[in-house]
């Protein structure tokens, strides 16, 4: 834009500021040494007798020891949920259910800082994200669905809405509290009871939410939380629940769909993605650069709808690439609890290994890797912001979900080619379009086979906005009126 930038395009747009450390205090978080399972309104020791440590991925320090639920524990949780559903919750007037959900929303707001700090400690995400995105949205979700609890008759015309029953809900580690809210709030509003299984690496905010639910005087058994790894999730899938809601990888989603085949149980899946972020030559370039950076580096790229494939129209490829490289150099990687941090820790060693393996495949297949100078902390799990050019559509880094801070850059000439490339994937969760031309936005939005299309923005979420995938990114929607449907039987009025 300016002469200075054109003269020295590889230089950062801003001077390289030095930032003093600005760590958020962890004093507000009162960690227990051990956590039990939340079943029937109480924290109980697991019958399995097994527990596992949960750590901070930024320091590898143990934060607490958490129970690992076995089949008997899961069955007990499902039993508690069943009992709560049949004895109390399904018959409670919607207006009363609403008030419980409003209480939870308010308590999350009251304890927002505690939730945010704990989320960043346990998951490694930057505090500015957990503080400004995860926790406020989690509260908003409960507040939004609270209002539906006594208005279900107005949501779906000409049917009698009836709760499905007991929902088994399995959530991932990338937005631990927010995903818990996405799952629990609509289920409860619709009159179901739930058994939630948080991810193995990030159980702590779900357990804090359980404490909030307990303090809200929620009837025992309406919400149950069983911690553990894949085996606990499998136990929940095999338990006598009426509905499974899963957010996670496409591979596991398919396993679950197979596991419940022929049982008649309800299922919604929110799975992986490989979103195209498409920048046309007339795009507002400053916003596009920020949108592309946000699209892939938000939450270290641990986002199913991340804009992991950048499609740039050829005339602006060089310019956009230089700007992106410059912007990469200004991203601050480090302590998740530092308020200046842009890129926190990779969630786990296993995920780091997966990212490293896929990045190595990108180099091996002949793509050109760029990483800015970036000092990684000695302890913990870290990966520098990375972009690849010279990527072809057949490369693994253009096809597989990396779930890390790695951007693959491809180019296109015509809108038709952009659509073709964007849709050339088994996934279909999200897409981004950057252009000043309104008719082109709508033309693109219509043709992109993806559940969410962000035009001149990216990675926006709201409880009123339905979210979910096309194709192998899953089925069912979360958010909005659409998010109630998976939790209701809609029987036609005679």
């Amino acid at each position, binding site marked *: 834009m300016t002469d200075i930038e054109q003269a020295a395009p590889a230089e950062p747009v801003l001077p390289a500021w030095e930032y003093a450390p600005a760590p958020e205090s962890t004093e507000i978080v009162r960690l227990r040494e051990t956590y039990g399972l939340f079943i029937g309104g109480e924290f109980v020791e697991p019958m399995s007798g097994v527990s596992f440590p949960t750590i901070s991925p930024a320091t590898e320090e143990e934060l607490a020891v958490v129970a690992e639920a076995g089949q008997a524990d899961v069955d007990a949780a499902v039993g508690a949920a069943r009992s709560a559903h049949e004895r109390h919750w399904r018959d409670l007037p919607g207006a009363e259910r609403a008030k419980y959900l409003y209480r939870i929303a308010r308590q999350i707001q009251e304890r927002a800082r505690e939730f945010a700090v704990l989320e960043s400690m346990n998951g490694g995400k930057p505090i500015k994200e957990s503080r400004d995105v995860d926790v406020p949205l989690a509260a908003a979700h409960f507040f939004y669905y609270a209002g539906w609890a006594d208005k279900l008759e107005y949501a779906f015309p000409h049917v009698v809405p009836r709760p499905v029953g007991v929902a088994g809900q399995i959530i991932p580690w990338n937005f631990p509290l927010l995903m818990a809210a996405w799952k629990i709030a609509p289920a409860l509003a619709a009159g179901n009871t739930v058994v939630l299984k948080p991810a193995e690496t990030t159980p702590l905010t779900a357990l804090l939410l359980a404490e909030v639910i307990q303090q809200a005087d929620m009837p025992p058994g309406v919400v149950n939380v069983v911690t553990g790894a894949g085996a606990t999730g499998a136990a929940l899938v095999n338990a006598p629940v009426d509905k499974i809601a899963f957010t996670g990888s496409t591979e596991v989603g398919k396993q679950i769909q197979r596991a419940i085949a022929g049982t008649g149980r309800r299922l919604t899946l929110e799975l992986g993605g490989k979103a195209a972020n498409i920048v046309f030559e007339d795009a507002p370039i400053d916003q596009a650069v920020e949108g592309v950076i946000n699209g892939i580096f938000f939450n270290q790229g641990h986002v199913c709808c991340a804009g992991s494939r950048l499609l740039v129209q050829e005339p602006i490829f060089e310019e956009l690439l230089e700007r992106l490289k410059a912007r990469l150099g200004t991203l601050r990687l480090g302590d998740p609890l530092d308020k200046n941090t842009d890129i926190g820790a990779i969630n786990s060693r296993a995920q780091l290994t997966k990212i490293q393996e896929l990045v190595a495949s990108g180099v091996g297949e002949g793509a050109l890797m760029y990483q800015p100078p970036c000092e990684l902390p000695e302890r913990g799990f870290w990966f520098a912001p990375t972009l690849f050019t010279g990527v072809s559509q057949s490369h693994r880094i253009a096809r597989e979900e990396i779930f890390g801070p790695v951007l693959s850059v491809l180019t296109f000439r015509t809108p038709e080619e952009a659509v073709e490339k964007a849709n050339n994937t088994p996934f279909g969760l999200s897409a981004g379009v950057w252009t000043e031309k309104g008719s082109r*936005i709508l033309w693109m939005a219509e043709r992109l086979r993806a559940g969410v299309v962000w035009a001149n923005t990216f990675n926006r979420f709201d409880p009123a906005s339905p979210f979910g995938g096309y194709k192998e990114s899953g089925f069912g929607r979360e958010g909005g009126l659409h998010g109630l449907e998976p939790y209701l039987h809609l029987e036609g009025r005679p």
Partner: protein
Amino acid sequence: MTTDDRLSVRRTAKLFIGGAFPRSESGRSYEVLGPGGAVISHAALASRKDLREAVVAARAAFPGWSGATAYLRGQVLYRVAELMEGRRAQFESELAEAGAVGPARGVSAAIDRWVWYAGWADKIAQVAGGSNAVAGPYFNFSVPEPTGIVGIVAPADQALLGLVSRLAPAIVSGNTAVVLASEPHPSPAVTLAEVLATSDVPAGVVNVLTGRTAELLPWLAGHMDVNGLDLSWCPADLAADVEAVAAENVKRVHRAPDVDPFDARAQSPYEVTAFMETKTVWHPMGA
């Protein structure tokens, strides 16, 4: 059925793929039996390869059909009803041969069902979509869009009304379909295909296969280019295996409420949205 002395000209019942009426590439056919067990006709016995051809035809038809205006799709479905009315006698006689009680009522209900669903073409988006009040300076709206290719198992009985009750809601939104016709009573589906071929329904939007459900359905369920599966009438002994292979590409599996096809609850906009995806679009607002 002829009343004069001449020998009648019998129909060869064929498959309906991509707007054409081929025999099965396998060269096979099977006997269709009347209520008394006598052979009343033959039907093509579709193969796995025929099924793949049908999916290819359905995929080829999808961009045009889903991209057509809703008004046009509504008129095309209405046209199906118009032409069915002209073939009433044939449908009634085929249903009678299939042992249906009150075939005239079944034909009338099937025609009316096309008319009812035709009207949804340009209304479903207003019922199932809209703008969303997000907490920020964005215009945010959701629209329902067709899922893609839908595989449909027609009921063994209610060979016309049962089939139309599954097919019309699937295609009115812009999906294309591959139908496995009633195995014991395929004739009404074959005649419906002949109606569709002359009703301005673009070639490939509906493809009808006659044959063995147990032979074809697992391949339909496992096909990686089929996006949805209507198993409302899937034989119970096949359901678990079929659903398991459907998971390979995360197919949308749907079962309609178990109600009599003559019941008013057998037609519903939720049968249309069962094979639609919700797309949500965000755009910032600013001067």
